[in-house]
Protein backbone atom coordinates (compact mmCIF):
# COMPACT_ATOMS: atom_id res chain seq x y z
CA UNK A 1 0.00 0.00 0.00
CA UNK A 2 2.64 2.46 1.11
CA UNK A 3 4.75 1.62 -1.91
CA UNK A 4 1.81 2.11 -4.18
CA UNK A 5 1.18 5.64 -2.90
CA UNK A 6 4.82 6.46 -3.21
CA UNK A 7 4.70 5.39 -6.84
CA UNK A 8 1.54 7.39 -7.49
CA UNK A 9 3.10 10.49 -5.95
CA UNK A 10 6.29 10.13 -7.91
CA UNK A 11 4.52 9.44 -11.16
CA UNK A 12 2.30 12.49 -10.71
CA UNK A 13 5.28 14.67 -9.81
CA UNK A 14 7.22 13.48 -12.81
CA UNK A 15 4.53 13.55 -15.45
CA UNK A 16 1.61 15.65 -14.34
CA UNK A 17 3.02 18.49 -12.29
CA UNK A 18 4.20 21.77 -13.68
CA UNK A 19 7.11 23.07 -11.69
CA UNK A 20 8.59 26.31 -10.55
CA UNK A 21 11.85 27.49 -9.03
CA UNK A 22 11.84 26.47 -5.39
CA UNK A 23 13.60 29.61 -4.18
CA UNK A 24 11.03 31.91 -5.75
CA UNK A 25 8.37 29.98 -3.88
CA UNK A 26 10.30 30.00 -0.61
CA UNK A 27 11.06 33.74 -0.73
CA UNK A 28 7.47 34.51 -1.64
CA UNK A 29 6.21 32.55 1.32
CA UNK A 30 8.72 34.30 3.59
CA UNK A 31 7.62 37.66 2.28
CA UNK A 32 4.01 36.77 3.00
CA UNK A 33 4.73 35.78 6.60
CA UNK A 34 6.69 38.98 7.17
CA UNK A 35 3.80 40.92 5.67
CA UNK A 36 1.41 39.25 8.11
CA UNK A 37 3.71 40.05 11.03
CA UNK A 38 3.70 43.69 9.94
CA UNK A 39 -0.06 43.73 9.43
CA UNK A 40 -1.04 42.01 12.68
CA UNK A 41 1.81 42.89 15.05
CA UNK A 42 0.86 39.80 17.04
CA UNK A 43 2.29 36.36 16.45
CA UNK A 44 -0.68 34.29 17.52
CA UNK A 45 -2.87 36.31 15.16
CA UNK A 46 -0.33 35.51 12.44
CA UNK A 47 -0.59 31.81 13.27
CA UNK A 48 -4.33 32.03 12.94
CA UNK A 49 -4.17 33.87 9.65
CA UNK A 50 -1.65 31.41 8.22
CA UNK A 51 -3.90 28.55 9.24
CA UNK A 52 -6.86 30.26 7.60
CA UNK A 53 -4.99 30.90 4.38
CA UNK A 54 -3.81 27.33 4.45
CA UNK A 55 -7.38 26.15 4.83
CA UNK A 56 -8.43 28.19 1.81
CA UNK A 57 -5.60 26.62 -0.12
CA UNK A 58 -6.32 23.10 1.13
CA UNK A 59 -9.98 23.04 0.12
CA UNK A 60 -8.86 23.82 -3.43
CA UNK A 61 -5.60 21.95 -3.55
CA UNK A 62 -7.17 18.60 -2.79
CA UNK A 63 -8.95 18.71 -6.15
CA UNK A 64 -5.71 19.52 -7.91
CA UNK A 65 -4.12 16.48 -6.33
CA UNK A 66 -7.04 14.25 -7.28
CA UNK A 67 -7.13 15.54 -10.84
CA UNK A 68 -3.44 14.87 -11.33
CA UNK A 69 -3.43 11.36 -9.92
CA UNK A 70 -5.45 8.24 -10.37
CA UNK A 71 -6.49 8.28 -6.74
CA UNK A 72 -9.92 7.24 -5.64
CA UNK A 73 -11.51 8.17 -2.36
CA UNK A 74 -9.23 7.05 0.45
CA UNK A 75 -10.35 4.03 2.36
CA UNK A 76 -9.70 4.77 5.97
CA UNK A 77 -7.63 7.23 7.91
CA UNK A 78 -4.34 5.38 7.65
CA UNK A 79 -4.48 5.42 3.87
CA UNK A 80 -5.34 9.10 4.10
CA UNK A 81 -2.18 9.76 6.09
CA UNK A 82 -0.11 7.98 3.46
CA UNK A 83 -1.71 9.94 0.65
CA UNK A 84 -1.07 13.27 2.35
CA UNK A 85 2.59 12.44 2.86
CA UNK A 86 3.48 10.53 -0.26
CA UNK A 87 1.21 12.14 -2.82
CA UNK A 88 0.18 15.56 -1.49
CA UNK A 89 3.51 16.76 -0.12
CA UNK A 90 5.36 15.18 -3.01
CA UNK A 91 3.20 16.75 -5.68
CA UNK A 92 3.31 20.28 -4.29
CA UNK A 93 6.52 20.58 -2.28
CA UNK A 94 8.57 17.71 -3.69
CA UNK A 95 9.28 16.30 -0.25
CA UNK A 96 7.85 13.34 1.65
CA UNK A 97 7.33 13.67 5.39
CA UNK A 98 7.26 10.60 7.60
CA UNK A 99 3.98 9.33 8.99
CA UNK A 100 4.50 8.36 12.62
CA UNK A 101 3.18 8.23 16.15
CA UNK A 102 -0.22 6.69 15.50
CA UNK A 103 -2.55 6.82 18.47
CA UNK A 104 -3.96 3.53 19.76
CA UNK A 105 -7.41 4.29 18.38
CA UNK A 106 -5.86 5.10 14.97
CA UNK A 107 -7.49 8.50 14.90
CA UNK A 108 -4.34 10.55 15.34
CA UNK A 109 -1.02 10.55 13.60
CA UNK A 110 1.95 12.80 13.14
CA UNK A 111 3.76 14.03 10.09
CA UNK A 112 7.46 14.39 10.80
CA UNK A 113 8.82 17.03 8.46
CA UNK A 114 12.45 16.11 8.02
CA UNK A 115 12.72 18.51 5.16
CA UNK A 116 10.41 21.48 4.86
CA UNK A 117 11.22 23.80 1.94
CA UNK A 118 9.36 26.69 3.57
CA UNK A 119 11.96 26.67 6.35
CA UNK A 120 14.98 27.05 4.07
CA UNK A 121 16.87 30.24 5.01
CA UNK A 122 14.51 31.05 7.86
CA UNK A 123 15.51 31.93 11.38
CA UNK A 124 12.88 33.38 13.68
CA UNK A 125 13.57 36.45 15.79
CA UNK A 126 13.79 35.49 19.51
CA UNK A 127 10.56 37.33 20.26
CA UNK A 128 8.72 35.28 17.63
CA UNK A 129 10.06 32.07 19.14
CA UNK A 130 9.06 33.16 22.63
CA UNK A 131 5.59 34.10 21.46
CA UNK A 132 5.15 30.82 19.65
CA UNK A 133 5.07 31.84 16.00
CA UNK A 134 4.55 28.76 13.84
CA UNK A 135 6.25 29.87 10.67
CA UNK A 136 4.91 27.07 8.48
CA UNK A 137 1.46 27.02 10.05
CA UNK A 138 -0.02 27.32 6.58
CA UNK A 139 0.62 23.58 6.21
CA UNK A 140 -1.75 22.79 9.08
CA UNK A 141 -4.50 24.75 7.40
CA UNK A 142 -3.85 23.08 4.07
CA UNK A 143 -4.17 19.61 5.60
CA UNK A 144 -7.29 20.53 7.55
CA UNK A 145 -8.95 22.10 4.48
CA UNK A 146 -8.06 19.22 2.20
CA UNK A 147 -9.39 16.62 4.63
CA UNK A 148 -12.59 18.53 5.12
CA UNK A 149 -13.25 18.23 1.40
CA UNK A 150 -12.85 14.49 1.87
CA UNK A 151 -15.51 14.55 4.60
CA UNK A 152 -13.06 14.40 7.47
CA UNK A 153 -13.21 16.99 10.18
CA UNK A 154 -9.81 17.26 11.78
CA UNK A 155 -7.69 19.27 14.13
CA UNK A 156 -4.20 19.91 12.79
CA UNK A 157 -1.41 21.66 14.64
CA UNK A 158 2.30 21.96 15.07
CA UNK A 159 3.50 20.20 18.20
CA UNK A 160 7.21 20.61 17.56
CA UNK A 161 9.08 22.98 15.29
CA UNK A 162 12.78 23.10 14.44
CA UNK A 163 12.52 26.86 14.03
CA UNK A 164 11.63 27.10 17.71
CA UNK A 165 14.59 24.99 18.74
CA UNK A 166 12.97 21.54 18.68
CA UNK A 167 14.89 18.65 17.20
CA UNK A 168 12.28 17.90 14.56
CA UNK A 169 9.14 19.45 13.17
CA UNK A 170 6.00 17.51 13.89
CA UNK A 171 2.47 18.21 12.76
CA UNK A 172 -0.26 16.36 14.63
CA UNK A 173 -3.41 15.40 12.73
CA UNK A 174 -6.42 14.39 14.79
CA UNK A 175 -9.61 13.03 13.24
CA UNK A 176 -12.63 14.48 15.03
CA UNK A 177 -15.44 13.00 12.99
CA UNK A 178 -16.59 11.96 9.55
CA UNK A 179 -18.94 14.49 8.02
CA UNK A 180 -22.25 13.32 6.60
CA UNK A 181 -22.43 12.72 2.93
CA UNK A 182 -24.60 11.02 0.35
CA UNK A 183 -27.57 13.26 1.02
CA UNK A 184 -27.28 16.35 -1.12
CA UNK A 185 -27.07 19.47 1.00
CA UNK A 186 -29.89 21.12 -0.86
CA UNK A 187 -32.01 20.12 -3.77
CA UNK A 188 -33.51 23.43 -4.67
Amino acid at each position, binding site marked *: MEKQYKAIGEEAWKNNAEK*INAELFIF*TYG*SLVVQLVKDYENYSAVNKQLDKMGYNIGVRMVDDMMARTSLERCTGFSATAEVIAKVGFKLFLNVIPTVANWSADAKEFSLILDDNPLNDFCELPPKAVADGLRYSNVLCGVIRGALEMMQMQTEVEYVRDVLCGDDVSEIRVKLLRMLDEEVPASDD
Partner: protein
Amino acid sequence: MASQSQAQAQAQMHAQSLMKLDNKTSKRSNMLLEQNVSRPRRDRVGLGAFAFLFAEIIRYSQNRVLGIQDLEAKLNEIGQRVGVRMFELSMWREKTVHREMRVLQTLVFINTVVWRALFDKQADSLERSTENDDEYMITDNEPAVLKYISVPKEMSSFSPGAFISGIVEAIARCCQCPARVTSHVVPADGLPLRTVILLKFDKEVMDREKRLEAGK
Protein backbone atom coordinates in the same frame (compact mmCIF):
# COMPACT_ATOMS: atom_id res chain seq x y z
CA MET B 1 6.95 47.39 46.61
CA ALA B 2 5.97 43.79 46.48
CA SER B 3 4.43 44.11 43.06
CA GLN B 4 7.45 45.97 41.80
CA SER B 5 9.87 43.26 42.78
CA GLN B 6 7.46 40.75 41.36
CA ALA B 7 7.50 42.60 38.11
CA GLN B 8 11.26 42.64 38.23
CA ALA B 9 11.39 38.93 38.87
CA GLN B 10 9.03 38.38 35.98
CA ALA B 11 11.10 40.51 33.69
CA GLN B 12 14.17 38.58 34.72
CA MET B 13 12.46 35.28 34.07
CA HIS B 14 11.36 36.49 30.69
CA ALA B 15 14.90 37.55 29.87
CA GLN B 16 16.17 34.17 31.00
CA SER B 17 13.70 32.27 28.92
CA LEU B 18 14.62 34.41 25.91
CA MET B 19 18.25 33.56 26.52
CA LYS B 20 17.49 29.88 26.77
CA LEU B 21 15.63 30.07 23.50
CA ASP B 22 18.53 31.97 22.06
CA ASN B 23 20.86 29.13 22.93
CA LYS B 24 18.51 26.66 21.30
CA THR B 25 18.09 28.70 18.17
CA SER B 26 21.72 29.73 17.85
CA LYS B 27 22.25 26.21 16.56
CA ARG B 28 19.93 27.19 13.75
CA SER B 29 21.71 30.48 12.99
CA ASN B 30 24.94 28.57 12.80
CA MET B 31 23.47 26.05 10.45
CA LEU B 32 22.10 28.76 8.18
CA LEU B 33 25.43 30.59 8.09
CA GLU B 34 27.17 27.35 7.22
CA GLN B 35 24.87 26.13 4.49
CA ASN B 36 26.10 26.25 0.97
CA VAL B 37 24.15 28.74 -1.12
CA SER B 38 26.39 28.67 -4.17
CA ARG B 39 23.89 26.36 -5.78
CA PRO B 40 20.20 25.99 -5.06
CA ARG B 41 19.69 23.44 -2.33
CA ARG B 42 16.58 22.15 -4.00
CA ASP B 43 15.50 22.38 -7.54
CA ARG B 44 11.77 22.67 -7.96
CA VAL B 45 8.44 22.69 -6.23
CA GLY B 46 5.03 22.35 -7.84
CA LEU B 47 3.75 25.35 -9.75
CA GLY B 48 0.43 24.42 -8.16
CA ALA B 49 1.83 25.16 -4.70
CA PHE B 50 2.96 28.58 -5.86
CA ALA B 51 -0.26 29.32 -7.73
CA PHE B 52 -2.48 28.49 -4.76
CA LEU B 53 -0.25 30.49 -2.43
CA PHE B 54 -0.17 33.46 -4.76
CA ALA B 55 -3.95 33.35 -5.22
CA GLU B 56 -4.31 33.40 -1.46
CA ILE B 57 -1.89 36.33 -1.19
CA ILE B 58 -4.02 38.25 -3.67
CA ARG B 59 -7.24 37.39 -1.82
CA TYR B 60 -5.68 38.38 1.50
CA SER B 61 -4.36 41.65 0.14
CA GLN B 62 -7.65 42.42 -1.54
CA ASN B 63 -9.42 42.22 1.80
CA ARG B 64 -7.09 44.78 3.30
CA VAL B 65 -7.11 47.49 0.67
CA LEU B 66 -9.67 49.80 -0.81
CA GLY B 67 -8.77 50.00 -4.44
CA ILE B 68 -6.85 48.45 -7.26
CA GLN B 69 -3.89 50.79 -6.82
CA ASP B 70 -3.52 49.80 -3.17
CA LEU B 71 -3.81 46.15 -4.10
CA GLU B 72 -1.02 46.53 -6.63
CA ALA B 73 1.07 48.44 -4.08
CA LYS B 74 0.65 45.59 -1.63
CA LEU B 75 1.73 42.98 -4.18
CA ASN B 76 4.61 45.22 -5.17
CA GLU B 77 5.74 45.33 -1.54
CA ILE B 78 5.59 41.54 -1.24
CA GLY B 79 7.58 41.25 -4.47
CA GLN B 80 10.25 43.68 -3.29
CA ARG B 81 11.31 41.46 -0.42
CA VAL B 82 11.63 38.62 -2.90
CA GLY B 83 13.59 40.79 -5.33
CA VAL B 84 16.28 41.92 -2.89
CA ARG B 85 17.04 38.35 -1.91
CA MET B 86 16.80 36.83 -5.35
CA PHE B 87 19.10 39.52 -6.73
CA GLU B 88 21.92 39.25 -4.23
CA LEU B 89 21.67 35.47 -4.48
CA SER B 90 21.71 35.32 -8.30
CA MET B 91 24.69 37.66 -8.36
CA TRP B 92 26.52 35.48 -5.85
CA ARG B 93 26.07 32.55 -8.20
CA GLU B 94 27.49 34.39 -11.20
CA LYS B 95 30.91 33.36 -12.44
CA THR B 96 32.26 36.73 -11.44
CA VAL B 97 30.45 38.32 -8.55
CA HIS B 98 30.15 41.94 -9.59
CA ARG B 99 28.02 45.04 -9.38
CA GLU B 100 25.71 46.58 -11.95
CA MET B 101 25.18 50.32 -11.68
CA ARG B 102 24.50 51.39 -15.21
CA VAL B 103 20.93 51.44 -16.41
CA LEU B 104 21.41 49.28 -19.46
CA GLN B 105 23.55 46.65 -17.76
CA THR B 106 21.11 46.48 -14.88
CA LEU B 107 18.23 45.95 -17.27
CA VAL B 108 20.07 43.27 -19.17
CA PHE B 109 20.94 41.52 -15.93
CA ILE B 110 17.31 41.53 -14.87
CA ASN B 111 16.14 40.49 -18.30
CA THR B 112 18.49 37.52 -18.50
CA VAL B 113 20.04 36.30 -15.24
CA VAL B 114 17.23 37.23 -12.87
CA TRP B 115 14.50 36.04 -15.21
CA ARG B 116 16.26 32.73 -15.73
CA ALA B 117 16.67 32.29 -12.00
CA LEU B 118 13.04 33.11 -11.33
CA PHE B 119 11.22 31.76 -14.34
CA ASP B 120 13.69 29.43 -16.09
CA LYS B 121 13.81 31.56 -19.21
CA GLN B 122 14.79 34.99 -20.36
CA ALA B 123 12.17 37.67 -20.58
CA ASP B 124 10.73 37.91 -24.08
CA SER B 125 11.91 41.42 -24.80
CA LEU B 126 13.64 44.46 -23.43
CA GLU B 127 12.91 47.77 -25.12
CA ARG B 128 13.43 51.45 -24.61
CA SER B 129 10.33 53.57 -24.83
CA THR B 130 10.15 55.53 -28.03
CA GLU B 131 8.48 58.40 -26.25
CA ASN B 132 10.52 58.84 -23.09
CA ASP B 133 14.25 58.33 -22.73
CA ASP B 134 13.95 57.34 -19.10
CA GLU B 135 11.44 54.54 -19.68
CA TYR B 136 12.19 50.91 -20.43
CA MET B 137 9.97 47.90 -20.86
CA ILE B 138 10.55 44.27 -20.03
CA THR B 139 7.95 41.99 -21.57
CA ASP B 140 7.02 38.47 -20.57
CA ASN B 141 4.53 36.82 -22.90
CA GLU B 142 3.38 34.22 -20.39
CA PRO B 143 4.55 34.81 -16.84
CA ALA B 144 4.38 31.41 -15.14
CA VAL B 145 3.46 32.99 -11.81
CA LEU B 146 0.31 34.49 -13.32
CA LYS B 147 -0.60 31.58 -15.53
CA TYR B 148 -3.98 30.72 -14.04
CA ILE B 149 -5.23 34.16 -13.15
CA SER B 150 -8.27 35.63 -14.92
CA VAL B 151 -8.90 39.19 -13.90
CA PRO B 152 -12.63 39.94 -13.81
CA LYS B 153 -13.92 42.62 -16.16
CA GLU B 154 -14.84 45.01 -13.36
CA MET B 155 -11.19 45.01 -12.29
CA SER B 156 -9.75 45.18 -15.77
CA SER B 157 -7.13 47.76 -14.80
CA PHE B 158 -5.64 45.41 -12.22
CA SER B 159 -2.34 43.83 -13.12
CA PRO B 160 -1.34 40.85 -10.97
CA GLY B 161 2.16 41.36 -12.37
CA ALA B 162 2.55 44.04 -9.68
CA PHE B 163 4.28 41.27 -7.78
CA ILE B 164 6.86 40.97 -10.55
CA SER B 165 7.25 44.73 -10.81
CA GLY B 166 7.99 44.72 -7.08
CA ILE B 167 10.79 42.24 -7.67
CA VAL B 168 12.17 44.39 -10.49
CA GLU B 169 11.82 47.62 -8.54
CA ALA B 170 13.81 46.21 -5.63
CA ILE B 171 16.58 45.03 -7.94
CA ALA B 172 16.79 48.37 -9.73
CA ARG B 173 17.16 50.04 -6.35
CA CYS B 174 19.84 47.52 -5.30
CA CYS B 175 21.75 48.51 -8.44
CA GLN B 176 21.48 52.17 -7.49
CA CYS B 177 19.17 52.79 -10.40
CA PRO B 178 15.95 53.53 -8.53
CA ALA B 179 12.91 53.59 -10.76
CA ARG B 180 9.16 53.65 -10.56
CA VAL B 181 8.15 50.22 -11.77
CA THR B 182 4.66 49.30 -12.84
CA SER B 183 3.14 46.31 -14.51
CA HIS B 184 0.57 46.24 -17.28
CA VAL B 185 -1.35 43.44 -18.90
CA VAL B 186 -1.10 43.93 -22.66
CA PRO B 187 -2.68 40.85 -24.23
CA ALA B 188 -1.56 39.68 -27.63
CA ASP B 189 -2.90 36.95 -29.85
CA GLY B 190 -3.19 33.80 -27.76
CA LEU B 191 -1.30 35.46 -24.91
CA PRO B 192 -3.97 36.80 -22.57
CA LEU B 193 -1.51 37.49 -19.75
CA ARG B 194 1.30 39.09 -21.72
CA THR B 195 2.74 41.42 -19.12
CA VAL B 196 4.81 44.53 -19.65
CA ILE B 197 6.98 45.71 -16.77
CA LEU B 198 7.54 49.43 -17.21
CA LEU B 199 10.52 51.07 -15.52
CA LYS B 200 10.70 54.83 -15.27
CA PHE B 201 14.09 55.74 -13.84
CA ASP B 202 14.51 58.57 -11.37
CA LYS B 203 15.88 61.81 -12.72
CA GLU B 204 19.11 61.49 -10.70
CA VAL B 205 19.76 58.17 -12.37
CA MET B 206 19.36 59.61 -15.85
CA ASP B 207 21.51 62.62 -14.97
CA ARG B 208 24.21 60.34 -13.62
CA GLU B 209 24.03 58.24 -16.77
CA LYS B 210 24.67 61.36 -18.86
CA ARG B 211 27.61 62.33 -16.67
CA LEU B 212 29.15 58.88 -16.88
CA GLU B 213 28.57 58.79 -20.61
CA ALA B 214 30.29 62.17 -21.03
CA GLY B 215 33.16 61.14 -18.79
CA LYS B 216 34.05 58.15 -20.93
